């Protein structure tokens, strides 16, 4: 009987190192002779650089070099476009503008890099940065989306006619005819604002050009080491084989670390090659707010057409999307928003115009959810509003419109972020919804507890929000699995790890195939010297894409093991089993051979091999899904609001997660909890505040409030539901972003429920205690006016 590893709550392989301070993060790397970089950044959001005087800075003892854009000469080049506009959507307009290593003439967002100081240590480098005198001609700033499209708006890129960065239209069916036959049309405007990822580790880069070996080694907190290797080699005129990029342990990614070719990422390797010295740059927390990407500002004008009894006939959403000063990441976020606007529902007619707008603010690229939150926020809010207008129960309206379990694969016609049709592969939304209702004890709360608490004057609200999440997209990932003569297994993949437990979950997949203990499977991620091909950690795709590549490679090795062992043990393959690091004959356990011995036999030092044999017990395989898999889930929450402080106390929180086959329940729960904490931040505590000059008003952790243990619910109850994905052998789906996606919609519903009878209608996120108070004041006034 063979043991099973997939689906087990196995302790993580990587933890002992992380727990004892023995795990290598980028800033831990020390190289003899290493220099340190600090950047002079623009305080202005929009300005022309008139002059840069570095003379005093250069005189400072310990300063080795100072570079401006001018000093880069012909090597100065903006970053490459990372994601092209979708080739499969008709008539897309896209103006590509990318960030530069150092600003040449015009600064376009506060925090842009104007000069870099390379010095013996960071303290001296920062002193020298203060010595640099930059003369700016301030230019008018544009931060508001609608204002940015006005004909007299200041232009972020003056070689363009306007601040229109992109335009994309998608449709399904015929919204106008649906509208014509509707009993009710609901129209609302929604405003969604920016938040930051705030990984606990800021970004960091070390570039080490060794002139004698002509090799560049980089340590980078990136989520995409292989593309960084390829692009850096290209930019410096080197061969891929001359560049090694290592993403060691990374202290959280959450999206912004897959933005590639940040100014600092382009500058440091160039500077290292110029000076022939290793150079380190570690971002500080204040820089992180300006210099690392963030996401989420959009303005939506939405219309929903429904029948009298609550069937959705059509949905129309025209929206503006803030891309910041540049748009290297294409239209990924708005495509995700469009892909999630129809939620878990049958909506046969859909129309959406997306206009991406340049503003004088830092670049926008995906942050956990990557545009999905916005879509789910809108569809769920519209349904909540519809049920009030139609007098229908909020649970009923959802049940009525869910995609039924027999409708899969469900074709949503529009194009998603992977440039292919949005197809939901499998799911059972009604069952997940029902399970969540049971977990939160919805009926009993609404019928008994809530009225009782309300009679005591308590402001308690309950909410439930279902959601879907597109995950596991291509293009591909790969893995190499090798059994060593020690009997341990080595696995490499080009993917990176930022805390998701890959060193364990991928090992479990291998253990399942080879019968080796999870602790004896050594996983290497994030080192381009170990594996040459891959794209990076994004879109909740690790378990699906890398997992299945690992599975394929491990299966190939298993086949080799059985073939060879069959010969050695003179037994047919189907009578052999792999367990505890051995291959043994099913009924004769004494007749066995260890995997290590087999590995040695497979790599003879002398003699001849059979034609067509590959040495060792090793295999490399790739997995490239045709389309992503669709995970789904449902969150429910009971909260209480303090009427004087508007602070919120979450009493109960329940999650049901359908991510297909669960590889490790501990890890999945961890991802859900972490996602919920970010979602709570997005809903009620976090908002990147920009003023009209493009300055961030809360660029510190003292003012930008991420959730602490106090803001979390006392206990998040997690339930699992499994609809296996038919798109991959493991049947698994992604889960990395799921926890964060429905929370803003959940919060809005719960708050409206808590303030029932007060006409509170929430059309924006993030909120805050202050903002909630303001909205209540406005709503009370409206009610009084109507009396």
């Amino acid at each position, binding site marked *: 009987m063979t043991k099973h590893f997939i689906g087990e709550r196995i302790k993580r392989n990587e933890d002992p190192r992380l727990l004892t301070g*023995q795990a290598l993060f980028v800033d831990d790397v020390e190289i003899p002779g290493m220099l340190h970089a600090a950047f002079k950044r623009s305080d202005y959001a929009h300005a022309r650089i008139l002059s840069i005087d570095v003379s005093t800075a250069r005189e400072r003892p310990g300063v080795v070099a100072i570079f401006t854009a001018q000093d880069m000469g012909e090597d100065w080049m903006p970053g490459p476009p990372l994601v092209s506009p979708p080739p499969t959507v008709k008539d897309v307009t896209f103006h590509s503008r990318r960030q530069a290593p150092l600003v040449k003439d015009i600064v376009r967002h506060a925090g842009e890099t104007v000069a870099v100081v390379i010095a013996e240590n960071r303290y001296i480098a920062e002193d020298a940065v203060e010595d640099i005198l930059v003369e700016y001609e301030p230019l008018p700033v544009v931060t508001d989306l609608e204002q940015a499209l006005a004909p007299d708006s200041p232009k972020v890129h003056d070689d363009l006619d306007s601040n229109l960065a992109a335009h994309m239209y998608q449709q399904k069916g015929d919204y106008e005819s649906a509208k014509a036959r509707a009993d009710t049309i609901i129209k609302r405007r929604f405003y969604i604002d920016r938040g930051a990822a705030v990984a*606990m580790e800021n970004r960091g880069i070390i570039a080490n050009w060794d002139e004698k070996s002509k090799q560049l080694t980089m340590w980078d907190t990136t989520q995409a080491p292989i593309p960084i290797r390829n692009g850096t080699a290209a930019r410096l005129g080197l061969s891929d084989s001359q560049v090694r990029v290592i993403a060691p342990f990374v202290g959280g990614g959450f999206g912004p670390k897959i933005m590639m070719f940040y100014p600092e990422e382009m500058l440091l390797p160039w500077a290292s090659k110029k000076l022939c010295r290793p150079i380190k740059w570690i971002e500080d927390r204040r820089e992180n707010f300006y210099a690392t990407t963030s996401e989420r500002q959009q303005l939506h004008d939405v219309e929903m057409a429904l029948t009298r009894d609550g069937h959705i006939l059509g949905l129309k959403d025209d929206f503006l999307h803030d891309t910041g000063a540049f748009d290297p990441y294409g239209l990924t976020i708005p495509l995700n928003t469009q892909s999630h606007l129809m939620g878990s529902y049958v909506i046969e007619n859909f129309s959406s115009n997306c206009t991406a707008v340049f503003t004088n603010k830092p670049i926008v690229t995906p942050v956990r959810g990557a545009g999905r939150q916005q879509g789910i926020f809108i569809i769920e809010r519209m349904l909540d509003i519809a049920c009030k207008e139609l007098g229908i129960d909020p649970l009923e309206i959802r049940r009525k419109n869910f995609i039924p379990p027999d409708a899969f694969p469900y074709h949503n016609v529009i194009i998603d972020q992977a440039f292919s049709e949005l197809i939901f592969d499998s799911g059972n939304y009604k069952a997940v919804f029902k399970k969540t209702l049971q977990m939160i004890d919805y009926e009993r709360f609404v019928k008994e507890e809530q009225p009782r608490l309300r009679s005591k004057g308590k402001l308690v609200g309950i909410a439930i929000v279902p959601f879907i999440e597109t995950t596991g997209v291509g293009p591909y990932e790969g893995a190499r699995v090798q059994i060593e003569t020690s009997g341990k297994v080595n696995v490499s993949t080009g993917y990176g790890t930022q805390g998701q*437990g890959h060193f364990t979950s991928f090992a479990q997949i291998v253990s399942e195939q080879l019968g080796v203990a999870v602790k004896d499977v050594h996983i290497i991620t994030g080192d381009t010297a170990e594996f040459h091909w891959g794209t990076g950690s994004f879109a909740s795709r690790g378990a699906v894409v890398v997992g299945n590549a690992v599975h394929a490679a491990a299966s190939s090795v298993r086949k080799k093991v059985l073939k060879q062992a069959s010969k050695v043990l003179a037994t047919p393959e189907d009578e052999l089993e792999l367990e505890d690091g051995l291959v043994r004959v099913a009924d004769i356990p004494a007749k066995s051979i260890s995997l290590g011995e087999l590995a040695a036999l497979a790599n003879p030092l002398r003699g001849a091999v059979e034609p067509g044999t590959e040495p060792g017990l090793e295999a490399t395989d790739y997995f490239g899904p045709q389309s992503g898999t669709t995970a789904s889930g449902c969150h429910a929450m009971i909260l209480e609001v303090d009427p004087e402080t508007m602070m919120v106390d979450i009493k109960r929180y329940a999650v049901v997660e359908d991510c297909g086959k669960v590889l490790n329940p501990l890890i999945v729960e961890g991802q859900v909890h972490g996602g919920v904490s970010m979602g709570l931040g997005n809903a009620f505590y976090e908002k990147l505040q920009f003023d009209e000059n493009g300055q961030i008003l809360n660029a510190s*952790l003292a003012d930008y409030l991420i959730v602490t243990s106090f803001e979390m619910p006392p206990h998040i109850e997690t339930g699992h539901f499994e609809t296996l994905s038919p798109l991959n052998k493991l049947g698994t789906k992604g889960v990395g972003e799921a926890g964060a996606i429905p929370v803003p919609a959940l919060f809005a519903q719960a708050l409206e429920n808590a303030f029932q009878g007060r006409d509170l209608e929430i059309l924006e996120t993030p909120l805050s205690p202050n903002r909630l108070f303001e909205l209540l004041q406005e709503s009370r006034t409206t009610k009084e006016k109507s009396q």
Partner: protein
Amino acid sequence: MNNSFNLSITVNGIQYEREVEPRLLLSDFLRHDLGLTGTHVGCEHGVCGACTILFDDEPARSCLMFAVTAHGHHVTTVEGLGSIDHLSPLQESFREAHGLQCGFCTPGFLTTLTAFLKENPDPSEDEIREAISGNLCRCTGYQHIMDAVKLAAEKSGN
């Protein structure tokens, strides 16, 4: 500013003598001068708690201290709490309960909680929640960290 100071400091039981600039942060001294990179720097504002060490057995933010203020004192970092082959009961509990994901904030939690559990070997849920409220974690949502502390308290009780 090149004046230097003869610093004498005990870290994890070992005494060190080093010449340092007065403005050198304790976090930077530990990480780069002594190579004890287990203490991490998340904000340098004293908010996130990742840099927490034990200063004469009391939790303190090493990013808000100068190395020279630790002259003559003893500091414990995460490296002094246990080793890969001998995890402390608290470290082992973190592993069992999945109380860490990326691990960046973890050393700060471990030092904070080591001091806390010494004074409160049998804490209530509310007491644990308050004890960790000064440390930020972006990955775990704190729930498994709470579980780890409860587990550690149980282990020590046995």
